[in-house]
């Protein structure tokens, strides 16, 4: 997707603004436990010194130490609880926000944004931000605190020696900065590779039957191998950078330890420092080095989280589809398309298509493959917007209707079978306005009653994802029942009869007449025989309306229609006999 404003890159830290309370508690507990931890070497040094001075008091050392470690325990435990809640809450809210945003988008946006990528956004990307909150924030805060705190204590003990030790901080900082700049780019790339992997996996799952029929498993494996190799290579590149960085940091910190030994040793020898102070210096150095290493590891987490957050932000910032419609009127069923034009890129799909269907009338749209029939139906339901022209329902533009009200009055049976992995009841009563009564009516109309009665759990039988356990005709009829269950005023059928045998088809159409009188029917179909008594037939070819009229009229005036009619003649004869 195009991202016009490259300049403004949201920082993952900005995300935390809404969780001030939790983050405050988190940092507070972390600092308290770490602060007390800082005192431990001091207590030990004091113990050693007092022992050397023969003023050692066992009880007081024991008491101080015991209080300190119990407090540390309590605060770390509290911190771990807050940490869990904070990170999970951030992730949960982020996923909610994302799904909320996605749920308000148009069909076109989802296809363009690509479901595999959105899946990565909702899972892996959200996870890396969760990791950021649960690990990076505490580690960063306590590391910085430890470094600063230990530095101050070091300065207080011996400022000259302390400065030598503290000098390592900027050196390490620069090393990090240089490496992380490179790593960030690689992280973004590796996220893209994950999208790619998801796509290959998901196509191989959705196309599993075809792959087995063609025996192309090897080919799929090769595709996967390509993506996976790329993922591995990226992983190795990132690794190489970190493999170089971490030993350098360890070395630099070891150097500072060496400085303490040599220089500190010198001070002790010259009696400007006590042995106890020297021991404390050593302990504090250990305290400084560990947080520096932690910052190193966390920078990895932060880099990943930043890459993920930018991807998530680009979804969250996608312009929302505006639903300005306010009309909530009940439709009477008049439908009109006026000069509809639709292009996919340069390619015209529909050219100045116009027609009108009166309430309660039956309209058939007939035409060859790629005439634009399905697209026309999508426009009539508002799934896609035409580049020019108007769609009118009861002489009002489709845009002016409130979406919810509109969709409750228009039923649409898609050409491809879309069945959800839920009970048959939920698959049919897919809208929340469906009553038991209208559900029963829809099932009866779609001739599904016997089928459902024969199922083990009747309406509550769960059908598998993609409806694999159902036959083509059963899926199609469930989709019809789904459209009828909302008691629509207008019913749009996209090649509904393709997978249903002609007897069932005939019965279903009669049922619709009987149970849904006054419904406006617009049906895309291939079979002329079924629509001979329709109020009008629209012949659509290559995006243009070639002819409009009743079957009788078209058979007299449209040579194209006659050609289609003839191509079906032999069949029609048989169907008449049956």
């Amino acid at each position, binding site marked *: 997707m195009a991202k016009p404003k490259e300049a403004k890159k949201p920082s993952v830290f900005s995300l935390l603004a809404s969780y001030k309370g939790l983050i405050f508690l988190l940092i507070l507990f972390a600092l308290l436990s770490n602060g007390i931890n800082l005192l431990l070497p001091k207590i030990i040094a004091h113990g050693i010194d007092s022992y050397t001075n023969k003023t050692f008091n066992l009880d007081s050392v*024991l008491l101080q130490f015991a209080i300190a*470690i119990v407090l540390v325990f309590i605060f*770390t435990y509290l911190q*771990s609880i807050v940490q869990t809640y904070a990170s*999970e809450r951030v992730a*949960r809210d982020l996923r909610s926000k994302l*799904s909320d945003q996605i*749920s308000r988008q148009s069909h076109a946006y*989802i296809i363009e944004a690509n*479901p595999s990528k*959105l*899946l990565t956004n909702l899972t892996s990307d959200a996870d890396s931000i969760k990791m950021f909150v649960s690990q990076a924030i505490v580690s960063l805060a306590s590391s910085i605190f430890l470094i600063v705190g230990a530095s101050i204590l070091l300065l207080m003990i011996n400022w000259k020696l302390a400065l030598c030790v503290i000098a390592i901080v900027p050196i390490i900082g620069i090393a990090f900065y240089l490496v992380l700049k490179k790593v960030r780019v690689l992280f973004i790339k590796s996220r893209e590779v994950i999208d790619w992997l998801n796509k290959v*996996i998901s*196509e191989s799952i*959705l*196309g599993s039957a075809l*792959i087995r029929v063609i025996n*192309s*498993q090897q080919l*799929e494996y090769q595709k*996967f191998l390509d993506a*996976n190799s790329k993922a*591995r290579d990226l*992983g*190795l590149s990132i690794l190489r950078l970190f493999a*170089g960085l971490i*030993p350098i940091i*360890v*070395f630099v910190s070891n*150097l500072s330890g*060496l400085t303490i*030994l040599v220089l500190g*040793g010198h001070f*002790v*020898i010259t009696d400007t420092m006590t*042995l106890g102070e020297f021991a404390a210096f050593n302990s504090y150095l250990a305290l400084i080095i*560990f947080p520096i290493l932690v910052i190193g590891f966390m920078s990895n987490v932060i880099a990943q989280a930043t890459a993920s957050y930018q991807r998530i932000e680009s979804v969250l910032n996608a312009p929302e589809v505006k639903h300005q419609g306010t009309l909530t009127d009940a439709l009477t069923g008049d439908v009109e398309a006026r000069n509809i034009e639709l292009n996919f890129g340069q390619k015209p799909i529909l050219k100045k298509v116009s027609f009108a269907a009166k309430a309660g009338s039956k309209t058939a749209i007939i035409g*060859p*493959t*790629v005439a634009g*029939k399905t697209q026309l139906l999508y426009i009539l339901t508002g799934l896609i917007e035409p580049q020019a022209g108007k769609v009118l329902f009861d002489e009002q533009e489709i845009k002016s209707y409130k*979406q919810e009200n509109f969709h409750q009055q228009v039923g649409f049976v*898609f*050409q491809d079978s*879309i069945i959800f*992995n839920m009970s048959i009841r939920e698959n049919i009563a*897919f*809208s929340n306005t469906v009553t038991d009564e209208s559900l029963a009516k829809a099932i009866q109309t779609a001739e599904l009653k016997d089928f459902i009665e*024969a199922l083990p759990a009747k309406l509550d039988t769960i059908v598998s*994802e993609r409806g694999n*356990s159902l*036959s*083509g005709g059963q899926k199609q009829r469930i989709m019809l029942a789904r459209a009828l269950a*909302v008691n629509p005023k207008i019913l749009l059928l996209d090649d509904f009869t393709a997978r*249903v045998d002609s*007897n069932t088809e005939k019965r279903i159409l009669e049922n619709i007449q009987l149970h849904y009188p006054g419904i406006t029917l617009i049906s895309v179909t*291939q079979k002329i025989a079924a629509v001979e008594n329709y109020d009008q037939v629209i012949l659509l070819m290559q995006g243009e309306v070639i002819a409009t009229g009743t079957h009788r009229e078209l058979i007299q005036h449209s040579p194209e229609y006659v050609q*289609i009619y003839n191509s079906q003649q032999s*069949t029609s004869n048989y169907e008449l006999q*049956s």
Partner: protein
Amino acid sequence: MNYNLNQLNEEQEKQSTYQALKRLLKFISAERKNLILALIAILVNSGLLLLGPLLVGHTIDTYIRTKQFHGVLVFGGILLGMYLIAMVTGYIQTKLMGGVGQRMLYTLRNAIFNKLQELPVSFFNQNKAGDLISRVNSDTDKLNQFFSQSLMQFIGSIVTMIGAGIFLLSINIELGAAALSPAVAIVVFTIALSPWIKGKNAKNLKSVGGLSAEVQESLNNFKVIIAFNRRDYFRKRFDEANKENYRTAIGAGLANNIFVPVYGLLSSIAQLIVLLFGIHLISIGQFSLGFLVSYLSYCTNFYNPLRQLAALWTSFQVAMASWDRISKILLLETNLQVIKNDETITSDALIEFKDVHFSYDDSKEILHHINLKFEKGKTYALIGPTGGGKTTTASLISRLYDATKGTVLLNRKDIRSFSAEERTQKIGFILQEPFLFTGTVKDNILYGNNQYKDVSDDELTKIIEKANLNALLAIFDEGISTKITSGADSISLGQKQLIAFMRAVLRNPELLILDEATANIDTITEQLLSSILNKLSKETTLVIIAHRLNTIENADEIYFVNEGEVQQAGTLNDALNMLSKGKRVS
């Protein structure tokens, strides 16, 4: 056969944990050389890091306390050399172990994907796409995180700990034993809690799979959600999955974080023990102050890695829970094995069904007592009401499933004795729901076609012409280079069916099954398709499943399939009579 990964039976469960571990070791064994090298690097590195405090202690006692600065400098130089070596070994260790992790992840993902390709269609019918994706991607990544980041620290920590432990004990056995006693408590605590923690993480990973499945299903069917005004429904379903995930994640998180404070507490207690006991020892003259300083730092060397282990142990538990989920896939075996059976049965047909029964999964039988023959070069039609068993019959011919009872013969031999390659070369099947891959029209019509694998565009155009398919290409704007995105609506269902048709015809199968393959194609194009079919080799057998009767007019024989039984219909008229009387069972 049960392929549902979330409902494996107990035996399958049990088998998986044990075998999984063996398999995991097999994956690692390929990296033996690197692992040994890395281990050496880790040993050297940890050894050097341990030697450091010892030398520092020695320097303090021998030189600083006796005020000999020269000795301090000498030991400083030795330490510098050690640190330089440690830097090199540190680099080698990270690079090697990380490399092992990345390559393991790579091999593991490949293994899972390969397994997915081996498994039969039933497996995909029983599992959700999103859950599978989550297993291939997230779960392997959890394992990778452990291998590339944690394992190295894990080994390093253990080595450092053992080393520090030995030092602690060897310097002074009593003080050492006292210093190590809290560690025993830690081990007991860890072992006791691990199963509980792994269980919590397993629950969490399962809900991650559920979330992913929810997203996958909803996003791929988004137009229905819009057209039925169920955006709220998408939000609700997602919200439920999200909440469930939140709940299990909190459970797992709280469990995972329990180690850190406990380990911290016990390691502080150890320090206290050392301090008090050490001072006691010094007071009775058994220990020196210099040694106490380095002893305290060994203690830190022992307990700091232990603290790290607390975090690592958690990531180990997460990795094990992920591995369980992965190994469940790896251990499934296809029930469609190629059997050894060269026995030929006298039959004059290309395909013959001998008393075939079929049910999907131990439930209701779908096909009963099917006996039918498809002879070479003839055209057959299967007609009947929806849900009668036509597609199932066709699926048995192409061995998407095996018969539960009875035999399907191909060329007089049990169809199960053919290799997948040979079988799919002979039998073409245009599925009811055409599926296209992202790519071009060319990619899709040559998909899986070994004969024309590397042909140029010009050659392909000629091949298409020869197969009389060129008229079909005309409806694609840019011919064979028209771009296709899988799952998108940029091309129509009719166009998809045409591509599936071309794809099947160009494979020159001996038997071609068309399962409502032209249902969404207009009748004029359909006439074109039947003329193409007529021009196919006289040897080609066609099996056509259709509702539209004009597609089956030219059939040599018609079978009427209803309620899982197949009857032969003499003429088209007979068939129509059956059809009009046929009670629809479904």
